């Protein structure tokens, strides 16, 4: 059979069709990059062309104004208080929701799907938008920030915890049920011991997130040290801003370290 056709030697590792598809896709992708770049007038080359701006601005931040430090503490503690209150309330409020969004606990499909849907919606709202909304509702200040953080934290905690609950060993629950325990007793005796370490660990993690988030929320007037940053930027008082940023950096590192160590100890 082979002698009446010319000997076939493959020239490529891929069939011709695959190569065509890849080439066309590549052209499309490059096209999108170009179009996006032109319409937004942002070119990667600017990074080099405008390097002088960057160095100028950075230079204006230095040296930090160390005399400003005493003005920072009050707002800094406000930020930490916001994170503590928001995390504590969110942790407590999220408990029933984590149970309602865990399929192995909430066997009622309608209720489970409804709760899932509700929590998904909450999670799609960015924390900064929540802050803007609550500042509109309750006015500028910590209270709006705390409410925003609570809702934001519930979204995260419920998602993480319901997945942990769905992964637990259900055999102990069966045993508790079989010995006459009611639903709450079954959860308390068979579910809680299995998930408590993770629950505490996640709460600490959310506390870390809340410290960082509350800094940003201040920019829209939701209290805390962000408000101070916002004020000083508007006054073009860059040395003060860099003092604040350095202090926040130090505090976040310390809190993350402590909470990380605590979580290691728990798990």
């Amino acid at each position: 059979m082979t002698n009446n056709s010319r000997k076939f030697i493959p020239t490529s590792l891929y069939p011709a069709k695959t190569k065509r598809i890849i080439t066309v896709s590549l052209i499309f992708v490059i096209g999108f990059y170009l179009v996006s770049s032109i319409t937004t007038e942002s070119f990667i080359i600017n990074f080099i062309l405008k390097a002088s701006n960057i160095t100028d601005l950075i230079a204006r931040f230095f040296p930090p104004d160390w005399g400003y430090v005493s003005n920072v503490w009050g707002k800094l503690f406000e930020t930490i208080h916001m994170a503590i209150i928001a995390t504590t309330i969110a942790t407590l409020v999220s408990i029933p929701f984590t149970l309602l969004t865990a399929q192995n606990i909430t066997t009622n499909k309608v209720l489970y799907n409804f709760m899932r849907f509700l929590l998904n919606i909450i999670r799609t709202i960015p924390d900064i938008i929540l802050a803007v909304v609550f500042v509109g509702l309750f006015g500028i200040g910590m209270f709006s920030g705390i409410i925003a953080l609570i809702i934001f934290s519930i979204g995260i905690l419920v998602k993480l915890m319901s997945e942990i609950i769905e992964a637990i060993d259900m055999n102990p629950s069966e045993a508790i049920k079989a010995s006459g325990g009611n639903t709450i007793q079954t959860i308390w005796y068979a579910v809680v011991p299995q998930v408590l370490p993770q629950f505490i660990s996640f709460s600490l993690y959310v506390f870390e997130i809340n410290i960082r988030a509350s800094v940003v929320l201040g920019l829209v007037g939701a209290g805390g040290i962000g408000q101070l940053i916002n004020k000083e930027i508007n006054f073009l008082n860059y040395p003060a801003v860099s003092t604040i940023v350095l202090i926040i950096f130090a505090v976040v590192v310390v809190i993350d370290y402590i909470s990380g160590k605590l979580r290691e100890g728990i798990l």
Partner: protein
Amino acid sequence: MIEFKNLSLTYPNGTKGLKNINIKINEGEFVVIVGLSGAGKSTFIRSINRLVTPTEGDLLVDGENILKHNGKSLRELRKKVGMIFQNYNLVKRSTVLKNVISGRLGYTGTLKSILNMYSKEDMNMAYENLKRVNIEEKLYSRADELSGGQQQRVSIARVLTQKPNVILADEPVASLDPPTSHQVMTYLRQINKEDKITTIVNLHFIDMAMEYADRIIGMRAGEVVYDGPVSEVTEKTFEEIYGRSIREEDMRGGAADDE
């Protein structure tokens, strides 16, 4: 007394778990149910405390039809019907004592049980039951620090703390080695005789069934194919129940090492 009357169970996917079962189990009997895996032994046992719900017929426990039970009445049923599982089903991160006292949950109010407010009598009972299975020195150990045999003894203590009239044991020794298996079965047998607790055990080991049972019920494909006192059972009976000749894997062995 437990009475199965024309009892059948069809799972939602159409599988027949039980087919027209008619059985009477008397108070204080030690019944061993034998059969290959998938024969319906587990379904049979789990019907009695309603972990599964039969779809047709009647199931009477102490004269009450339990198929209609729900909520409160179901919990009342489960208080008097204790259960032991193949995988012990202890809460692994909790202490031995907390696992054992959870046998009292059916008798304890929700709030009290959440706050660990157990009466002196309950605590005493839990400790005495741990003593009974010789594991009282592990009182405050975490359950996952114990060996399989020890965990199964803790689960026996838990079931005793529940003060049941009936103990169901679903393959209680399938995860254990031969000497430990005999130890666990000996405890179950002893409790059955001393406390007159009706005991129903699923086993697939022929030698163990013969050694510990008063009465043997054989199941195949969801039907009861044999029911009689252990004295009338021979190897031939098991061949009929299993529908094949007896193999080495049907024996646990090891009884001699224990004695």
